[in-house]
């Protein structure tokens, strides 16, 4: 394990009642502006026919993956995996709002906030976690579906829940497996609509990665060199001037 702690969620699907307290708690706690959201509850709809019916609700948000595709594509270095806790975070001061990570996330767990020009997503309520509190969505979960903690600590609630569980699933496929840190218990989550999609490396991004970034780097380098030359020249000339 690279980092000291590996924080993540365990979600007991059988206990989610779709009350949506987590959705509102997240919005208020993190001042997420309408109509955006950082977390979702996927209603899989009714299965079966009357009266033999089943219905499950699957909460999800950023999976704080071990191998996050969003980090790979980040051009500004704003998206990073916190070395202390493993949470995938966005430094919104550094984010340039290019949106490539939004396309790269196989779970569509990020959004671009056009008013602030930055990407936003679940932070695992890292500010609460650092105070020793649970994330807002976990603290208020009425059904007891959401758990949060350190998978590296065998005594944590999430580790204990995994140890006890008879059925554990990560939302991964053969094609897409970023090793997400949300583990699902007791529910049929391997359904279309929830499974990860292939990261979208768009034309824009390909162009960006293949042409624009090298071009920008080259441009910056050239301009820096030019400036340096000019500056040095000016410095020398200036000195000469001064001497004159």
């Amino acid at each position: 394990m690279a980092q000291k702690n590996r924080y993540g969620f365990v979600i007991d699907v059988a206990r989610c009642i779709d009350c949506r307290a987590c959705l509102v708690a997240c919005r208020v706690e993190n001042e997420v502006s309408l109509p955006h959201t950082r977390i979702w509850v996927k209603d899989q709809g009714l299965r079966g026919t009357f009266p033999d019916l089943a219905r499950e609700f699957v909460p999800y948000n950023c999976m704080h993956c071990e191998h996050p595709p969003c980090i790979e594509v980040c051009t500004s270095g704003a998206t990073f995996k916190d070395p202390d806790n493993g949470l995938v975070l966005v430094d919104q001061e550094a984010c340039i709002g290019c949106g490539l990570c939004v396309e790269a996330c196989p779970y569509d767990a990020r959004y671009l906030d056009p008013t602030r020009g930055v990407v936003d997503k679940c932070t695992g309520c890292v500010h609460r976690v650092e105070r020793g509190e649970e994330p807002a969505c976990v603290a208020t979960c009425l059904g007891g579906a959401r758990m949060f903690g350190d998978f590296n600590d065998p005594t944590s609630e999430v580790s204990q829940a995994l140890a006890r569980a008879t059925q554990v699933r990560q939302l991964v496929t053969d094609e897409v497996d970023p090793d997400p840190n949300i583990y699902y218990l007791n529910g049929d989550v391997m359904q279309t609509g929830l499974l990860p999609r292939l990261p979208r490396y768009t034309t824009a991004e390909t162009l960006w990665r293949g042409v624009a970034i090298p071009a920008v780097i080259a441009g910056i380098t050239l301009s820096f060199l030019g400036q340096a030359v000019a500056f040095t020249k000016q410095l020398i000339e200036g000195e000469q001037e001064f001497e004159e």
Partner: protein
Amino acid sequence: MTRIGPHVSRRDFLKLGGASVGALAAGAILAPPAAAAARKAGFIDVAGDGTIPTMCEMCVWRCGVLARVRDGRVVKLDGNPAHPHSRGMLCARGQAGLMSTYDPDRVLHPLIRVGPRGGGQFRQATWEEALDLTAQKMAEIRDNYGPEAMIFSSTHNLSQVQFENLLSAYGSPNYGTQRSLCFNAMVTAFLLTYGVEEPARNYDRVKFVLLTGRNLLEAISTSETAELMEAVARGAKLVVLDPRFTKTASKATEWIPIRPGTDAAFLLSMIHVIVTEGLADCEFVKKYVTGCEDIPAAMAEYTPEWGEAKTGVPAATIDRLAREYAAAGKDAMAHPGWRTSNFINSFQAERAIATLNALSGNVLTPGGCLVAESPEAAGIPLGKPPQPAYPRVTSMRLDGVPWKYPLVPLKLGIFQNIREAILSGQPYQAHGWFVSRQNPVLSIPDRARTVEAMGKLDFIAVVDVILNDTAWYADVVLPEASYLERYDPLNIVDHKLFLRQPVIEAQGEARSALWIYKQLGERLGLGEFFQYEDEEDYLRQQLAPLGAELQDVKYKGYLEVPVEEGDGEIVFGTPSGKIEVYSETLAGAGFSPWPTWEEPPAPAPDEFYLLTGKVGQHTQTATQNNAFLHQVEDEPKLWIHPAAASARGIEDGASVRVTSPIGSVVVTSLVTEGIRQDCLFLAPGYGHASKGLRVAYGVGVSDSDLHVTYTDPISGGQALSQTFVTVERA
């Protein structure tokens, strides 16, 4: 001895029991601004940041809240772990509570109507002017027609005790609560059977939970919803009777999509099996239940086969569930339900539920239903301001209680009958209506008739935080401070006194109900009934007999009151002191003394039952304008089974017209397997007509445009599911 009821219920009916204080508490001071008080109490620092304990008001469960405040604004609400109703959690509504306080549509200044009534034209007025006008009109009505010509209505607010004080001091018998639209059947049945209004539930050891229409995962009571989920996760059996596949049904061990109106038949058949097979807790029943020996004979006809014919549930299923219920012994619970205003016979279903609990002997057990609060807790000697005796009221009540409905408790009443009495002018003509934090225009069946009734009144005043549909028709609107901006009287929960206190300054000119009622009382010459200087003085007088300081209660948010343990003897608050499965009181009033079957009306072949219910993101008609809740709600639709839909050419998402004997609405369809073919379900709480609600206006439709007014003669409950409708493509 443990006496079961009448006592202070967990949920409401805050009664100020015990000794009254002889004089005004000394040192009464003017209410300091919230921030100053919070700073003094040590909640917030100089910058105005901190956490303040208070109580939620997004529904009536009243969870404890820890309000986080920054720069004088509340920025987050968390459940208070110290409060047994929240246990550290808040539901979606509780989490969204600050948006109700900061709703851009809040009414923040007194308003006086300028255009025609219902036209929505108001002008801003001063408190002085609005209060003077309200008091002047109320005094005129009292002088010209007698105090009974003024109707007072309010529901479930913590300041209800002072609302009742105002109406009693004024001298009107006409008290409109919302209760007959909600839980009259449950409360009346349990009062008659156990002498308790609402039995508490305990899920600690429960192994079998029977929910009769109680949609606990969508009609959320935070702690109880959580306790049920814990019990289910532990392996308790959950059986849900509901014509609709609710979210609660989705978590059930067995969902029984019972024919509407036949819950009582199902339950009576269960009782039949239990008593004829000798499966009841005999020791308990013999000791505590009236008519014990005669129960088998009284239930003889309700065989499972009879039950199948009524309910559509196979006899074998009823028989099996009865045996499983009995096998769980004291760890079986037949949940009493809450909104039980479904059919005229809902009272009998509640009596059967009360009986099932008695047969399992689960009273006062940690897996059971009737966990009574001890009398010591009920009798916490709270103080109250001194006041003279109320004037004697001799006039009849407009709602027919008790002169036409002898068994309906006075404090429940029959709300829908008040509207009818305004229209008929019988037994006398009402002239004014003072409404506080209530929305009869949307809640009483047949909205058009309610609006028509309002048109017959000389004066309507409304106290509220937003311009709801009833305020829209008011002559004067008095803006109440939101629950995060005001004090209310203390609330008792599990031997603790909880405090609602302001966490921010009241916005605009909004004021507390305690202040508003006192101001009106003084202007009506009733000042001696309101002997408190301000809200804090009122609370100090409440706390005086306990020797507690308000400052300490403010700091913790509650006060723990030591309680003596009972000695295990149980006496029920009924005439016999026993559980009255056989009720002389009912017999004396001309009704069946036993829980019994009353055949409900059924829809014609082309008609449907129109079901109502709850969604987990809203409370009644009060929260639809909250933008945070609006964002997480489902679009309100009409549920219809695919077979019923295709027979009418209705596709999912189609616009459909629903027509009842009193009106019709056009709404979007939701074609779903999750409902019986003979039922429709209309998402509740929508269809606001007030343009003062910019989020809620124009969203969905109201079932008050469809519901026919039917009243149960025993409990006074409105039968909301007894309206039959047709549906077609719009």
